[in-house]
């Protein structure tokens, strides 16, 4: 008797616990990212709140991890139970590596459902950058391009016309003119290395063109030892020999270099689409350069190069999902990157949107130029240090700085990248 009583009460207690469990059950959808701007996160939180309003059972948790920590932790995290449902991706070689491990969810079927409604909501360029082996591995979120930004006052003072900088030699000429006028031509973040790899990347794109770059990436033929890659390195050395950067640039981080530019201590910076906001955040006085004082021009052409002036180097960020995702996670990320939300983020000046017919939402004039440049791009290339994977990518960053400083010849630099690629493949 007592035994059955105990068993019954235990069962009742257990069911009560389970019941109360379901009553309060909320599906947690976690999203892990590396963005640091507080206004942007507030905008994201608003999107999450909107989603939770229509999905009362879902609790969206936006989690931040510092960039380097995120990259270092992700392999372990993805293979554990603590893996975030959705996480930030730069596309490229890292995403490709992850896609081959079974740790990621293949989004192709979801994208193609209902006649490809989801897939067709994005521009084909950004989406295509997240496809490997014909499968979609991440949801596109934002894009952008790298270009030169300049201080109009300083250009006027030195008598340099930005519109006339069309070729590499024009750029070198402008650098010399600025130097002769007693100005610092460039702000460089040599301590972080990757800010200088943009120069080599663009020079490679202009010299070699898309086909030769893709062949080198696949390590076909001479690979990175080919003539256009060596030439790109030599041209980078030419620029370095002019000593165009601010004093101490080899110890300067990217924010340091933005600060130099914002404080009017350098005339140009090769930067992201959001350079105006970025320099503002890093300015000593909190304001930096006025928007009217800021100009923008595309990376110049290289005489005799195969690449076009309309080829662009720039970001492609997306959101990847861990394998066997909760249905709510898929639903949320679909909502997060829908046209309305992309447009809202774009008009607030945070992103260049990836959804169709959304480019007009960008209001910031310099961001708009970047959006137009990407829209009209003949070849949009992801950052080399992302595209070539973490190992080869870091070598590209190292080598770019060494060539810029003059420690390595163009040929030696290219050979180091090639030999790292030989090891990786």
């Amino acid at each position: 008797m007592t035994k059955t009583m105990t068993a019954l009460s235990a069962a009742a207690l257990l069911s009560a616990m389970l019941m109360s469990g379901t009553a309060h059950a909320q599906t947690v959808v976690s999203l892990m990212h590396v963005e640091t701007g507080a206004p942007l996160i507030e905008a994201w939180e608003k999107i999450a709140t909107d989603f939770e309003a229509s999905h009362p059972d879902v609790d969206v948790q936006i989690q931040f991890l510092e960039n380097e920590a995120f990259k270092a932790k992700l392999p372990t995290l993805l293979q554990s139970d603590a893996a975030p449902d959705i996480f930030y991706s730069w596309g490229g070689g890292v995403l490709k590596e992850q896609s081959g491990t079974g740790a990621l969810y293949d989004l192709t079927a979801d994208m193609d459902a209902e006649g490809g409604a989801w897939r067709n909501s994005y521009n084909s360029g950004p989406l295509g950058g997240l496809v490997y082996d014909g499968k979609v591995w991440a949801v596109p979120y934002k894009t952008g391009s790298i270009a030169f930004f300049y201080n109009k006052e300083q250009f006027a003072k030195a008598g340099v016309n930005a519109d006339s900088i069309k070729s590499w030699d024009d750029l070198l000429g402008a650098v010399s003119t600025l130097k002769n006028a007693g100005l610092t031509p460039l702000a460089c973040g040599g301590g972080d290395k990757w800010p200088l790899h943009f120069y080599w990347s663009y020079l490679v794109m202009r010299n070699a063109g898309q086909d030769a770059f893709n062949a080198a990436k696949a390590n076909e033929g001479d690979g990175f030892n080919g003539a256009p890659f060596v030439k790109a390195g030599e041209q980078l050395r030419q620029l370095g020999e002019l000593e165009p950067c601010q004093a101490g640039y080899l110890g300067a981080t990217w924010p340091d270099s933005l600060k130099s530019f914002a404080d009017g201590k350098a005339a140009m910076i090769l930067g992201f689409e959001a350079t105006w906001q970025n320099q503002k955040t890093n300015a000593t006085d909190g304001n930096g350069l006025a928007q009217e004082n800021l100009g923008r021009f595309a990376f110049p052409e290289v005489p005799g190069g195969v690449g076009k002036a309309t080829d662009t180097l720039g970001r492609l960020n997306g959101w990847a999902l861990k394998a066997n995702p909760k249905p709510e996670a898929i639903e949320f990320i679909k909502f997060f990157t829908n046209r309305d939300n992309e447009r809202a983020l774009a008009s607030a000046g945070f992103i260049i949107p990836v959804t169709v017919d959304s480019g007009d939402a960008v209001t910031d004039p310099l961001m708009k130029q970047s959006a137009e440049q990407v829209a009209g791009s003949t070849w949009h290339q992801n950052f080399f240090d992302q595209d070539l994977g973490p190992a080869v990518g870091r070598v590209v960053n190292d080598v770019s700085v060494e060539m810029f400083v003059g420690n390595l010849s163009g040929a030696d630099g290219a050979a180091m990248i090639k030999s790292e690629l030989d090891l990786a493949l």
Partner: protein
Amino acid sequence: MTLPAGEILLTQPRSVAAVRKGGRWREKLPVLVLFLPPALVLFTMFVILPMGEAGWYSFYNWNGYGLPTQFVGWRNFEVLFKNASFLTALKNNGLIIVISVGVQIPLALWLANLLSNRIRGAVTFRLLFFLPYVLADVAAGLIWRFVYDGDAGLAGAIGRALGYPDLFLLADQKTAMGAVLAVIVWKYFGFHMMLFIAGLQAVDRHLLEAAEIDGANRVQKFFYVTLPLLASTLRLSIFFSIVGSLQLFDMIMPLTGGGPSNSTQTMVTFLYTYGVQRMQVGFGSAVGVVLFLICVVLAFSYKRVFMRND
């Protein structure tokens, strides 16, 4: 089943020694069973196993996903020893040891000698000199990054006053390692000084008095009485310097991150930069194995050769 040792003595008369031995064993067994496994399990899980795993991974080309499958033999080690940055890192570790022994320890010894005398303010000075050691390595690195800044830092201001307007010590590969070494000396001399003060307090005053009576001057007293008596502390101090050099990581990262041009790389920052950041777990493990071997060989041979009698 387990009788207390006393009862055994009563019921089974045996030789006292044998009983004691058996009794001790029986006394120890529960202790062993209770207290050894947790330590053993933890030590195995977090020390022995990872070491073995690192050895295993070091023969593979592996990015950390799934299980290592691409066996590459000794290739990771071959690549490692051809890597110029690794050789720089090795050299830097050696340099840190040399500076520790050649500059830091003599400085610490000199200050300890001054401050172990009963002079006014000795305690305050001891505290001041010891303070940097209390500071976290990362914090020290960040502080010194500001100090060395050529625009806003103290070093920049001094440079401008002396007629060097663009003094960026950490951005120049010729000066960066020197600047890092200065921070290391600043950070750790207080620790060695404290060791020496403790050592000096153990020196018998009578010996010094005897030397004084024999007519020894201060220099002679130091070199013939104090120093020999401090020898074991000195050896310990050098041992800490060596181990510290091999571990140096958290101060370098905020200071220079190993740059410019890898000129301030140490073995551990090299491991982090080339193994962790590049997601080359196989190669990183090879670095770890080499680092481990260097540590073991250095530590054991130092202990065997210099600290045999301590």
